[in-house]
């Protein structure tokens, strides 16, 4: 990838540049995935502070494994395999450290009402996600936050693609059942 063209490169191409030590490429990857990884950890663990630390850990582990990365592997799948492993490790260590997610300030470029409405909906969703069974929550997050295909999730979690589809369906059904208020 030529210098300055990193923004137009695919995730896999950017990752190959990272493996050569490019700071520009790493910055680009962070721009593309930091939010998704942070949200994945936050929703998986319901701990904002731990999510922050794990996001850093996840990207550092990605760098440690960078030379072993081959572009035949889809980058998002590779990254979230690391993230998922970290999430399970963390949860087994710190299940008891639950705390409420802090409410962020609304961003400057939208009306306060709409911003509050969005925050409230997001908060409700966090609550409902926290109440889901592990397997359903995991599939929902890998599909929605990470944007992975069912086949990729199946390989990652060691279950057939059909099982992933059933879990996703069930997760959505449970969310709809448990969502109180203005869903319908």
């Amino acid at each position, binding site marked *: 990838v030529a210098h300055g063209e990193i923004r137009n490169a695919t995730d896999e191409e950017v990752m190959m540049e990272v493996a050569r030590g490019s700071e520009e490429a790493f910055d680009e990857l962070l721009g593309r995935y930091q939010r998704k990884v942070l949200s994945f950890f936050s929703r998986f663990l319901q701990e904002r502070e731990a999510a922050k630390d794990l996001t850093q850990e996840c990207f550092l582990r990605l760098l440690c494994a960078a030379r*072993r990365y081959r572009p035949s592997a889809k980058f998002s799948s590779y990254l979230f395999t690391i993230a998922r492993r970290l999430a399970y490790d963390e949860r087994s260590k710190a299940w008891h450290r639950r705390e409420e997610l802090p409410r962020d300030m609304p961003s400057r470029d939208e009306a306060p009402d709409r911003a509050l409405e*969005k925050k409230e909906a997001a908060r409700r969703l966090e609550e409902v996600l926290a109440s889901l069974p592990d397997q359903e929550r995991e599939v929902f997050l890998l599909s*929605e936050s990470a944007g992975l*295909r069912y086949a990729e999730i199946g390989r990652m979690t060691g279950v057939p693609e059909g099982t992933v589809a059933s879990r996703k369906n069930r997760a959505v059904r449970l969310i709809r059942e448990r969502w109180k208020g203005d869903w319908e």
Partner: protein
Amino acid sequence: MSRRGGPECEPIREKLVLLLDGELPREATGEVRAHIETCPDCGEEWEALLRLRRTAREGELDPTPEEKAAILRASSPLLRELRKGKGRGARPRAIHGALRWAPRLAAAALVLLALLWVTERRTGERELRSADVVTYQELLQKERGTSFPTGAATWERLN
């Protein structure tokens, strides 16, 4: 959750999440889409799924600039190592090192071969000379019909 719609809606509802995730086989997509457009209940269900996706995306946490800066700071030494080509899987550098030493190794091998050749040649000459002596002895023996005394004196004369 209330589930409205006729019995024909049930199999369609099962496929809505697949459609949303782009996992529905192409041949089934048309049928489901056509049903959503004509059935208000399933259309509503579809809208609800789209709202859920939007909420999930909008509710993602924005990393703070400090969090990004912290990751960039921590990553700096690792990126430096990658630029140097150190760490696991740094095979290209190992090959490069071997290639740098190759001409020296080849030169050393050539010198060794030359030495071996010279040594071999000298040994061969010596053996040839010994063989000549034996032949000379045999000739004299045939002509004279007597045995020829061998010893240091003969060697000196021949050499």
